[in-house]
């Protein structure tokens, strides 16, 4: 995949703000020696970009920035406002509320396990967390602070300036702010759920109902057609008919790929700890997991672009409950990373 990854990153980098990163540093061996991030059961090792290896200090710095409201124009909004640890790293609202209460048209996705995502955002328009991290700061309806101002503000805070000097050997810049935040985001990992323990041989890890739900998930209900792999996503885009009955449906991936068949397609979201991040879907239109399963059970909202893998499931009420139980109980990590706001410089 090296070719593909490098192709993707080359493309996204040149489109993004971090072109200068394209020249890769040689990977430092220390990365392998000190496991700064412990990956929970059920998740594969994390691929760090060659030019942004993790260190404990960088993670700590990124965490401060993630929680720091001073990265917004009126000092009221941080990344954590919309991606809150206690709300499944989402924000419990149908739509994200940003600068001066403005609302966008899409639900805040979780950043849990975003480390593994090949694409970011509902329409996959960002390819790396580094590339993504600066976007919300400047977005007028999110944090509304220009990158230049953000850099100035950070450098004016001695505690930040010192850390950037130590970690990157320079003052804060757009690039290294992005690198620090992205590195912290890669530590927000959920795994080691009853599902993983069950798979590892502990047959008592899942209740009977969750076990039946698991069978359905990977069988009759065909959820794993799309929610597959360690984080339950195929890293692809599908039209499952959400919001297709709206007056002007969100074109989703189509707007990025220009592929006719992508109309109304959105990235398959990862599902670990999904019980924490209601409401669901790109438009936040479903409040509970039961509503979600009901949607699939009836075969989605019919439209010309509906994925072939969405069809009437004929699940009984008991089966619907079992599926919900599987997601709630089976996919909730035993050691949820409910990070607290760190002390800010």
């Amino acid at each position, binding site marked *: *995949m*090296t*070719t*593909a*990854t490098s*192709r*993707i990153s080359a493309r996204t980098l040149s489109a993004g703000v971090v072109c200068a990163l394209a020249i890769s540093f040689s990977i430092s061996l220390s990365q392998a020696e000190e496991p700064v991030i412990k990956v929970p059961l059920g998740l594969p090792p994390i691929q760090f970009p060659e030019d942004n290896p993790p260190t404990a200090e960088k993670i700590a710095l990124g965490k401060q920035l993630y929680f720091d409201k001073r990265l917004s124009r009126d000092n009221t909004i941080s990344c954590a406002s919309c991606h809150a640890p206690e709300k499944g790293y989402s924000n419990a609202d149908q739509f994200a509320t940003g600068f001066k209460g403005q609302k966008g048209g899409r639900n805040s996705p979780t950043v849990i396990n975003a480390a593994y995502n*090949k694409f970011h955002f509902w329409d996959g328009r960002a390819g790396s967390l580094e590339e993504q991290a600066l976007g919300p700061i400047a977005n007028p309806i999110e944090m509304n602070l220009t990158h230049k101002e953000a850099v100035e503000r950070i450098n004016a805070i001695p505690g930040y300036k010192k850390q950037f000097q130590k970690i990157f050997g320079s003052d804060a810049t757009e690039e290294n702010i992005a690198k620090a935040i992205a590195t912290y985001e890669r530590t927000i990992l959920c795994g080691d759920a009853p599902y993983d323990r069950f798979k590892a041989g502990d047959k008592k890890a899942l209740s009977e109902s969750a076990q039946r739900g698991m069978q359905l998930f*990977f*069988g*009759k*209900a*065909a*959820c*794993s*057609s*799309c929610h*597959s*792999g360690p984080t339950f996503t*195929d*890293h*692809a*885009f599908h*039209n499952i008919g959400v919001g297709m009955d709206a007056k002007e449906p969100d074109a989703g*991936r189509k707007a990025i*790929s220009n*592929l*006719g*068949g*992508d*109309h109304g*397609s959105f990235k398959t979201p990862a599902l670990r700890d999904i019980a924490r991040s209601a409401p669901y879907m790109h438009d936040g239109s479903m409040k509970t997991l039961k509503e979600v399963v009901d949607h699939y059970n009836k075969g989605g909202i019919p439209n*010309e*672009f509906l994925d*072939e*893998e969405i*069809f009437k499931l004929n699940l009984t009420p008991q089966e619907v409950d079992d599926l919900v139980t599987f997601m709630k109980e089976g996919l909730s990590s035993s050691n949820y990373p409910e990070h607290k706001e760190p002390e800010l410089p």
Partner: protein
Amino acid sequence: MQWNLQRILKATAFCLTAACLLLGSSYLVADEKGDKKGDDKKEAAKEEPKKEAPKKEEPKKEEPKKEETKPAPKKEEPKKEEPKKEEPKKPAVTVKTLVTNLESPSGIAIQDGTGHVFVASRYGVYRYDAKGKTVDLEIAGYPTDVYGKGPKYNIGPLGVAFMDKDHLVVGDGSRPDAEELVRIYKVGDKPLEKWVKEDTAVQTLGPIKAGDKSAKGEGNFYGVAVGDGAIYITCNGDDTKGWVAKSVIKDGKAGPLEPSIATKEATNVDAPVAITFSPDGKELVIGQMGEVNVAGDCLLTFYDPKTGKLTKSLKTGLNDIAGLAYSPKTKKLYATDFSWVDATKGGLFELKIDGDKVTAEKVISLDKPAAIAFDKEGNLYLTVFGTQGKDPEKSPGSLAVIKAGL
């Protein structure tokens, strides 16, 4: 490397332009608009094949005169840019179009003895005789299904392979999932006076209905390979499993078609499509296409046909492998990349395997290539979907050949 490739690309563009010109000259009567909406599907299925059915897609063989391969433009040798000395000089590869006006040509099989090339496309299976330069419809009357949501393709029979010299296995794609069939036809060594209907098969396998093994039933039997005493067929029905179905051959008869290898469970990637056997017949080689709307997610995988166990799964970086074939002369492995998301990236590639790494090296660019098959002499036949031109009456697909050398 870079410049070398670029030159090949240029050469290709040149050849393709030539091919396009030829294409433009072909003519065909069609009595039906190409695009069928899902709703009309049933009706189409019920339709008896009209006498004029084959006319819809009277494939045009290329005039021998115009067939002349255009030599690739002379290379200038920009010595300075030459990256490495060992870089071998690549002979220019030329694609010669043999038959045009095919719609969704997705399968190729070459008959032992005659060397006739059998091509499956939307309306049926054609026989191309390279010596006599004739093309004849052999089997027709299939219904039509639609693949994709934009671009959309009308599809009929998909994968073809010979079970033995006179038995052709045809994997169908013309029906809805759970109704799809695999049919085995007896074919002679000469073109037929008149084509036969699709239901005149000597054996019909399937369907694989919805059930415990397949949530919605199986369909789109894209690839067919015969080896190790069985027929193997890639299916694209239930995406939680990604089945390869198997039918054991006994006393010249194919046994029941059963879901056999759950490729999605083995690889975590969707859609087994291209399928072939390694030259020694010991490995079942499958191209796992991945998502059509995601670039670079294609795998090259190897299974032990005896056990159905995955032995190797390699990331190719290609977008959508649609055909796989080993050269009988050089034992090199070739793949076509249909490249759904970006047709300009599509083409024929040599897959070089080195341990756990595979490098896909482009041989030539092609506009949505699909099936490939080598004949005994090492000529590579390939089908190309092409891009629909302005005239809806003309189908953009073609059968082409690359002369022995690969």
